[in-house]
């Protein structure tokens, strides 16, 4: 029997009918089956890697970050993180990394893990190869190098250099695209060499087309969220990231997303909002940062008592790309545009435009900044955004917390801050 959980936090109330965990479980079960049979290689990735290439070559992309988010939601991350810290990981290091490092370093055999995984059938199969594109943070590629070292498997790293401040997303310099395409070609050669699978450009065009379709569906959902009342809140959108981050390039993701879009459209037609029936939408906020998978209730459901809902999340939008549509007839260039020019590598100007769109397009009253103490990138991004909000006199609240680790998390303090923020908005 499972032990009682050490950290009592909560699940958010969702409004969409899709059972994301069912798809996640299915994905992990199939990956483990393939691993056992040796039918498909497993490639570990960090978030926002060009996994469309993996799908085109029949390789299964697995993301330890996605796994860490699941561990966070299942409240088992602290045990794994403790293992990592016992092995010398500093406490202020990325908790996604520590979750996975602890898992590798013996955490997977802890009794609490076995209970949780047996219950949800989510077990991370060992990798055959690993890859990381450095487009988010500096830690990502080093993480994958450590995985490669642990499992003694080949590793490949790509790099997305910071866009020059004078560059606009609509006119990216040729040498950026060339550098990206060259690295993608090297990645393909790496996969061919280590998996024995042949690459087919036509097949890549197909997966890029599917990926673009998925992004387009999500963009339609974002557009529909501009409607009042907002048909779907952040509690749902954040969990849908699984499809964008792990299944971009698959038919299944497109089919699921299409079903979600249809449901959202239907809700808009019926003027049905994300808030519980009878609650009027009084405030529209934007959630900034990686959400606390261990306590989505506080991050998203708690605000409902103020008639508030999260109508936009910069984190979710990062995964569908924002450097324009993909062109399946130029798959490699399209992948470079999608994956090499994202929030952390883009210009301040682009970041501002996105925020201005938030304020104007979504009718946002304020921002909830979920500041991650163990994430250099998010804490830096939030500090930059807050400077911008100060400049434009936009209300925001900062909650210092973590995305999976509840050990230092003070739920009452966070709720007090949210109370003060919404009370101020009401004034």
């Amino acid at each position, binding site marked *: 029997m499972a032990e009682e959980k050490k950290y009592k936090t909560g699940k958010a109330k969702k409004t969409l009918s899709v059972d994301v965990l069912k798809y996640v479980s299915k994905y992990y079960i199939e990956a483990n089956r393939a691993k056992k049979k040796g039918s498909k290689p497993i490639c570990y990735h960090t978030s926002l890697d060009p996994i469309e290439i993996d799908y085109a070559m029949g390789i299964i992309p697995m993301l330890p970050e996605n796994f860490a988010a699941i561990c966070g939601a299942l409240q088992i991350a602290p045990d794994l993180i403790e293992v990592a810290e016992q092995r010398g990981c500093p406490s202020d290091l990325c908790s996604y990394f520590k979750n996975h490092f602890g898992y590798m370093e013996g955490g997977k055999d802890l009794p609490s893990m076995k209970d949780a995984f047996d219950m949800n059938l989510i077990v991370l199969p060992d990798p055959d190869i690993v890859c990381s594109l450095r487009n988010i943070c500096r830690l990502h590629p080093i993480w994958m190098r450590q995985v490669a070292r642990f499992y003694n498997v080949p590793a490949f790293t790509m790099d997305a250099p910071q866009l020059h401040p004078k560059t606009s997303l609509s006119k990216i310099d040729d040498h950026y695209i060339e550098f990206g395409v060259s690295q993608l070609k090297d990645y393909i050669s790496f996969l061919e060499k280590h998996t024995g699978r042949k690459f087919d450009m036509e097949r890549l065009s197909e997966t890029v087309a599917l990926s673009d379709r998925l992004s387009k569906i999500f963009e339609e959902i974002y557009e529909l969220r501009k409607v009042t009342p907002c048909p779907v809140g952040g509690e749902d959108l954040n969990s849908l990231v699984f499809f964008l981050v792990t299944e971009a390039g698959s038919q299944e993701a497109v089919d699921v997303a299409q079903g979600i879009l249809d449901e959202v459209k239907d809700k808009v037609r019926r003027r049905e909002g994300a808030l519980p029936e009878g609650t009027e939408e009084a405030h529209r906020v934007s959630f900034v940062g990686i959400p606390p998978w261990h306590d989505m209730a506080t991050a998203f459901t708690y605000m409902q008592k103020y008639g508030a809902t999260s109508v936009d999340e910069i984190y979710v939008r990062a995964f569908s790309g924002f450097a324009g549509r993909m062109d399946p007839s130029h798959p490699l260039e399209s992948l470079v545009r999608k994956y090499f020019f994202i929030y*952390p590598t883009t210009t301040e100007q682009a970041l501002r435009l996105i925020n201005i769109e938030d304020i104007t397009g979504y009718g946002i009253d304020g921002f909830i900044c979920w500041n991650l103490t163990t994430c*250099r990138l998010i804490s830096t991004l939030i500090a930059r955004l807050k*400077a911008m909000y100060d400049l434009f006199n936009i209300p925001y609240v900062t909650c210092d917390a973590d995305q999976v680790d509840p050990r230092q998390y003070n739920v009452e303090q966070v709720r007090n801050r949210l109370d003060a923020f919404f009370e101020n908005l009401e004034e």
Partner: protein
Amino acid sequence: MELSIKKPFFTPKDLSWHERAKWWKDKGKRVLGYLCSDFPEEIVYAGGILPIRILGSNEAISEAYKYSINPYSCYVTRSILDIALKGELSDFDGLAITTTCDACGLDIYWRMEDQVKGSFPFLYLLPRPSISKTESSHKFFRVELFRFKESLEEFLQEEIPKSSLAHAIKVYNQNRSLLREIYDLRGEGFISGVDAASAVFSSMGNPKDESNLLLSRMIEEAKVREPKSSAAPRIHLSGSVLFNLELFELIEDLGGTVVSDDLCVGSRYFWDPVSTDRDPLEALATRYLDKEPACPCMNTESKVEDRLNFILMMLERYKADAVVFCLHKYCDTHQLDYQILAEELEEREIPFLVHIIEQNIGTAQLRTKLEALFEIINGRG
């Protein structure tokens, strides 16, 4: 003002940032600040501008906390922002930042643009790939170096000729060669760990031609001295930025001596020369991408192995007994590399310790750790 190695121009105790820049500007010249040992100073020097390394300091932050700065970034980042916000860089004509880590490389640039706007007539972000040793990364970086040179020329309103670049490379290579010689003399006991570190600190802020004269004089003086022969524990320091020489002094106070390092304010700054047998910008692109010891922010396939090999080479070359890792809190890349480096050192039975620093080096705690390390070394005979 007379420059000297013993009282180096660059040591924070001696002159404020403002005074350093002013001293040069009074001669009718320009000053440009840079943050990282991976910045191609030669281009700036070729344009007749004095590049001064801005390291941050261990002074308490007062101004930056009035703004929304990231409390979870390293003290180096926060301190540099504070120095700028306090107006200490107001005499600088420019600031150039290489994209290395997320905090130092990027956050500071945007903050300078947002909050110190107008302070720098020339503010530049130099995108550098984190992959080296590939043709595509070299090609990319060549374009960016060319773009940087063009922007600088636009600012100066004059061209930087190839011959000036070639001359700058020659002067800088001489500086590197002299610093290596100083390291070798330190290894043989002719120069103390503190003095050798002073020489590097001094080189990061002085005009290189003048710095070379000082270093040559230092070498001449050292060579006629009797070398110190001692059984003191010989330490290799590993890490990034140190604000001052306190750590070197502490190790000497405890009876040890620093004989080598792979610090951003040490060998990472000067070890590799720039090739002189090809186009200057091409040579600079290669040097600043492929140089050893590599920055932990790099993601080149063999980076950690190369870093380990560099440390092992330094341990052998300078007969070091142990490694002291002095890492900044919130510096993810150094801390992650450390995990692998520590494993490898352990396997080779090389003694080491790790110490996390923030505003200060935490002398009391570090003293105890060093004493324990020295006991282990001395116990080995």
